[in-house]
């Protein structure tokens, strides 16, 4: 029972981070139809910024996260201007591969700042534990879903109630029609990269709690991929649910697989989301909440 509760709490906590990452992917996908493979590097860039400011320079964790959010969003905007804007109108695959190239270069640069050992991010939680239903769980896992919830609500409010949010929704619905209505699609593209940069910076700051940020942390950002595929590439609700499902599956498989299916090998939990993704896609090719393409000839 204690293991189950711990598994669920850890799963939902990590799932909340995956949900933020998935939201970043979906935000960019909805407006530009491109999967941004540079997000893992941006996430680590955000986490490292927090690490230098909070653990290094002694700034408060929240303030450091604030600075990291702004700087990572700016970095994302600059990348979009330099490498993605010239490619508008090119096939989406080409742009996606360009973002892969950006990711490789950016990661080399960020790894220089990480160094050989893990960097702590200076978070206030440490390994403090609280009791949930009589089981000790790390406090930070309870904070992650709350933080994610606040961000998601703010983001949805932005999409629903502001002019810029309306422009983004219009662009995602029909790019040409939006342009004809006077919406600057270029602005929308840049804005979506900025929002994604901000989201992954928060995710990086959260993912670095506990064992810190090292040169392989970026792989965790790719777990948002099964999440968005589960939810459907253009569904915000799907991204959140997909993220939580991926977190839960990973944590519960990690808890029980060694007892019930040891033949799957050590660390099977890390790849279990991909198995779920493959199974879901065989049944529902557009994810659980995605919209199927309707082909007109």
């Amino acid at each position, binding site marked *: 029972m204690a293991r189950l509760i711990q598994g669920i709490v850890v799963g939902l906590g990590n799932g909340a981070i995956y949900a933020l990452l998935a939201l970043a992917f979906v935000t960019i996908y909805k407006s530009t139809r491109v999967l941004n493979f540079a997000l893992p590097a941006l996430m680590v860039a955000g986490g490292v910024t927090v690490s230098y400011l909070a653990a290094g320079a002694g700034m408060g964790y929240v303030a450091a996260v604030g600075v990291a959010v702004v700087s990572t969003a700016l970095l994302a905007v600059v990348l979009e201007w330099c490498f993605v804007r010239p490619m508008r109108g090119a096939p989406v695959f080409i742009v996606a591969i360009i973002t892969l190239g950006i990711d490789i270069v950016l990661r080399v640069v960020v790894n220089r700042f990480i160094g050989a050992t893990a960097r702590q991010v200076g978070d206030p939680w440490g390994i403090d534990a609280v009791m949930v239903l009589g089981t000790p769980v790390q406090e930070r896992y309870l904070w992650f879903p709350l933080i994610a919830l606040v961000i998601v609500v703010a983001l949805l409010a932005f999409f629903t109630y502001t002019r810029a949010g309306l422009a983004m929704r219009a662009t995602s619905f029909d790019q040409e029609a939006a342009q004809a209505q006077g919406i600057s699609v270029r602005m929308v593209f840049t804005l979506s990269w900025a929002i994604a940069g901000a989201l992954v910076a928060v995710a990086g700051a959260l993912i670095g709690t506990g064992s810190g940020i090292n040169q392989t942390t970026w792989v965790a950002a790719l777990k948002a*991929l099964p999440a968005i595929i589960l939810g459907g590439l253009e569904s915000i609700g799907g991204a959140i649910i997909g993220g939580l499902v991926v977190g839960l599956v990973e944590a519960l498989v990690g808890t029980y697989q060694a007892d019930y299916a040891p033949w799957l090998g050590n660390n099977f939990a890390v790849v279990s989301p991909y198995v779920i993704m493959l199974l879901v896609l065989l049944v529902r*090719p557009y994810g659980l909440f995605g919209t199927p393409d309707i082909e007109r000839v």
Partner: protein
Amino acid sequence: MAMSLTRGRPLMRTSYAQDMGLLNTRGKRAGVGVILVLAVLLPFLATDGLLVVFATGLAACIGAIGLNLVTGYAGQVSLGHAFFLGIGAYTAAVISGDPEGRTLGLGISLLPVWLLGAGVVAAAVGLVVSPLAVRLRGLYLAVVTIGLVFLGEHIFKEWDTVTGGPGVGRPSARPRLFGFDLAADGAMLTREQKLYLLMLVLVVVFAIAARNIARSDVGRAFAAIRDRDVAAAVVGVNLTRHKAIAFTVSSFYAGCAGALVYTVTGFVEPGSFSLLLSVQYVAMILIGGVATISGSIMGALFVSSLNTASRELAAGLPFIGAVTGGGALNVFQLEGILYGLLIIGFLIFEPRGLYGIWLRARTYWTSWPFTY
């Protein structure tokens, strides 16, 4: 008759077969001939160290050609090539491995046997995976193939009776042909010279086969699916069948390439089959030229030599440190940055890759003194 008609008018075609011919101009015949002669002479001129780079590059050519068939010709974006390369490398290693060794081995070290075995097993897995490609399109497929790479990496790391386990690895397939061990120094040729010549012969065979697939009805169906799958289906292309063929053939090539690349190094480590390897192969076809066989070869040789090139570059540049720390960047980091920048640069400035640069140079000289 046909020859006399086209003489002096190189672009004149009087039949479809001429247009589709493999070496249909005198320039191409001469060019390919010269390149082949130079390629055969190379092992007697270059150092053994350089030959290892070329042999690895040539083996990678086969994998790049395979990826180009599925991604370039048929338009099915696959980031899962590393998975199939790994299957090929381990199948070959198991078939030719020492039965008494630490890892599983059948002890059949005859080259054609393990090469075909590697290709067939990888192709079978590709066929099993292809239903996903039939149901999914575009970036969904790209993400799913990334998932394959992660699953494959996990299996390779955990199944240590076959792979030796992470950080340990196992000896790769050993090439023996007609009683000769190609991976040992002989009386006439060194190990590197023999491996290079072996790879050269195999690349020619695989490249011609791929070119023939591309110019047959199957190849035209691939191109139709890439350009617009709905339209292809309307004109009678069987989507399910041709996507399955594309994946299977591509996986066969990848399996053979995986088996061969690691014969050169003599060693396979399960950590090598990561997403980075897939990205390298995608880089090969993008840098070389999408949907061209000669481009795949140029791209594979180019990307495989990046490692050596960055090492040479590092020796020449004072601010690049050695492998262990020091300097503004080390060799591996320089190599990583070069990959990334080359991918970005080619896609933005020359989407047709090295093949496109060659086309522009050729057009410049054939139409000289006019600009086009």
